[in-house]
């Protein structure tokens, strides 16, 4: 087989060019899903819900799953409601996360869609969801900021009508935020009941076990709550992709985040008998929604249960920050299970954009610029290589790795939509101790990275009395000899 094709893409210079010329969407930042960008009230701060109030969702009144062509109901509404509540509870039950997620009942009336109605058609779905462009959304719709709908497409017909591939199990989507507070305001989700109808024809109608289905929507509800993807124990995926046999022990399964972009490499967590949320999931959701003192009954303050590891990843020069390096802290006690990660630069934008190629650079607009930049993520250079990992107290071994090159677009981990290989390696064996309520600082200087500048960029300006010109640094001594005194 030919060598990997695009090693040239692995050059930072190519990445820079790509970022300058193309509007690369940065979808997920390892940890938070969305981070505030310029022009918001929360630049560099993750979008979260206002957890001073319960997060209220409303649910479709129809069945969760039904046989095709109006056949028998497989999972009725009552059981569907229970499933949804249990999946949300996986998150809200975290002792260190202040999250109250409540079912307020049936869907609100939206236009022609009746109150407490059953979302049966694509038109129903689109009415309840509201216009994505947000021009004139009905105030009761999700995009109108009126409700957080959880919808059941009991036989998959809505997905079909929308032209979506039959492989789509479902999705969650954030509808609106409050620009004054930077808090998430409404979100929704739709579950494809065809994956639970007991039929697997292996061509159009696929099936998942209940454990797989629930795991999938626990992941989706993590997105609903503002959580992005995480990468831990990626070696299992790499072995799978490389056609190697691999073992998935309980600790591997338990340690792989529910927010890993691919599920199913290991047995469903419920099947393996491990908690559905990994240490990474719990740490990050708790960081986004920390319980503060005084902790309510049954809860524990985040500060008493977690410390923080914070730092910056640098190139070998120790000066230039490196973005998109996945940093994993593994507890020395059961490192496969007890691990938490963060991607360097996760609060920084994946695409700062540029105005140089705008029709009028002095007055850039989205319509007249080829790359106006991603609206999300900070532009503060201090955050470019920054990482922060919430950790239970203990001693941890740190490692740095690339985000898997296949995690692009909607699968992305970290700020870049197309990941780049880590520019260098990290000296192994570094350990740090984390204590509750305290931040431990640990900067990482990668080994073996390329120079910050190449020889052509490393230049000095020679000025008067000779004409102004740029010379390569290595030419300088000779040039200086020729300069008039």
């Amino acid at each position: 087989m030919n060598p990997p094709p695009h090693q040239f893409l692995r050059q930072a210079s190519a990445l820079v060019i790509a970022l300058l010329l193309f509007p690369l969407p940065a979808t997920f930042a390892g940890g938070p899903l969305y981070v505030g960008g310029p022009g918001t009230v929360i630049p560099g701060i993750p979008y979260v819900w206002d957890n001073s109030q319960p997060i209220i969702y409303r649910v479709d009144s129809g069945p969760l799953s039904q046989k095709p062509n109006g056949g028998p109901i497989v999972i009725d509404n009552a059981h569907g409601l229970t499933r949804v509540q249990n999946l949300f509870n996986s998150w809200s039950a975290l002792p260190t996360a202040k999250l109250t997620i409540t079912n307020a009942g049936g869907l609100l009336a939206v236009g022609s869609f009746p109150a407490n109605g059953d979302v049966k058609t694509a038109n129903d779905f689109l009415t309840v969801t509201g216009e994505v462009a947000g021009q004139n959304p009905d105030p009761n719709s999700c995009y109108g900021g009126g409700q957080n709908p959880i919808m059941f497409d009991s036989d998959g017909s809505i997905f079909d009508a929308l032209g979506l591939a039959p492989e789509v199990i479902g999705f969650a989507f954030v509808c609106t935020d409050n620009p004054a507070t930077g808090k998430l305001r409404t979100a929704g989700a739709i579950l494809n009941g065809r994956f639970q109808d007991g039929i697997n024809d292996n061509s159009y109608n696929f099936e998942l076990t209940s454990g797989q289905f629930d795991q999938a929507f626990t992941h989706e509800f993590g997105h609903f709550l503002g959580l992005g993807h995480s990468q831990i124990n990626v070696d299992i995926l790499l072995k799978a992709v490389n056609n190697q046999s691999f073992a998935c022990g309980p600790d591997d399964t338990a340690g792989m985040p529910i927010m890993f972009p691919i599920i199913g490499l290991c047995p469903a967590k419920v099947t393996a008998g491990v908690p559905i949320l990994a240490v990474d999931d719990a740490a990050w959701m708790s960081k986004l929604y920390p319980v503060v003192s005084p902790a309510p009954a049954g809860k524990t303050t985040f500060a008493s249960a977690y410390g923080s590891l914070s730092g910056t990843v640098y190139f070998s020069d120790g000066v230039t920050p490196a973005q998109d390096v996945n940093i994993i802290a593994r507890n020395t006690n059961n490192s496969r299970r007890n691990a938490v990660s963060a991607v360097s630069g996760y609060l920084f934008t994946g695409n700062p954009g540029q105005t140089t190629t705008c029709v009028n650079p002095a007055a850039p607009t989205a319509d007249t610029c080829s790359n106006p930049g991603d609206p999300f993520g900070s532009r503060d250079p201090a955050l470019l290589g920054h990482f922060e990992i919430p950790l239970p107290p203990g001693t941890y071994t740190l490692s740095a790795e690339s985000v898997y090159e296949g995690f692009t677009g909607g699968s992305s981990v970290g700020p870049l939509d197309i990941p780049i290989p880590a520019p260098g390696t990290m000296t192994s064996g570094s350990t740090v101790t984390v204590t509750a309520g305290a931040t431990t600082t640990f900067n990482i200087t990668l080994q073996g990275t390329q120079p910050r500048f190449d020889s052509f960029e490393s230049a000095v300006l020679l000025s008067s009395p000779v004409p102004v010109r740029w010379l390569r640094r290595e030419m300088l001594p000779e040039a200086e000899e020729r300069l008039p005194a």
Partner: protein
Amino acid sequence: MQTTPAQRSSLLRIRFARPFHYFILVAAAFFPFLSASAQSSALTASRNLRQLVTESHTVIQGSVTSVVVQPHAQWHNLMTVVVTLQVEDALRGTPGSTYTFAQAVIDRRDLQQKMGYRAGQHLLLILLKPNVYGLSSPAGMEQGRFTISSAKDGKSFVANSIGNAGLFRGLDADLTSSGLRLPAAAQELVAQPKPGPIPLDQLKSLIRTISAGSTVP
């Protein structure tokens, strides 16, 4: 978005009478999973190349000439991304010299990013038949959408958004059961899959073989 193991029955699980229970997943090429897809944080079930091609109506290689966001003609509260390609090669179906399809947009961010489509992109798309509402999408969503890139030596490579993971899972057996034979050029590709981009010509050879053995829906 996330995908989950689609068919656990194909996994051979062996339990060791040891402190740990190890689930030995034989031949990772057979592992089924669920992965995140670009559509609105959607979760999709993993399909191999034969399954993707078989369910498709059109497979084309081409360059994107325009990407337009516009409301759906019938559902005005549905936005679509309308993508037009200059067709360089048609591997399935009869698309003509240009091909246009409309894909639904549910998520606001997908709208801002036009689903990641951009004029000038060089793509290989395995596309579903447009439904009665004129809507379509790549088979398996991101699994059927390949970006073509060129190496220094001029050779072209392709990869989908999950690095082609699962693309060749069980493919050899699938083809055999369908009475098809792997093209010689693609045998190593299927037998020893590697993560990341694969040669375009080998993928196209495989697609043509699969397409020849199945009816266009």
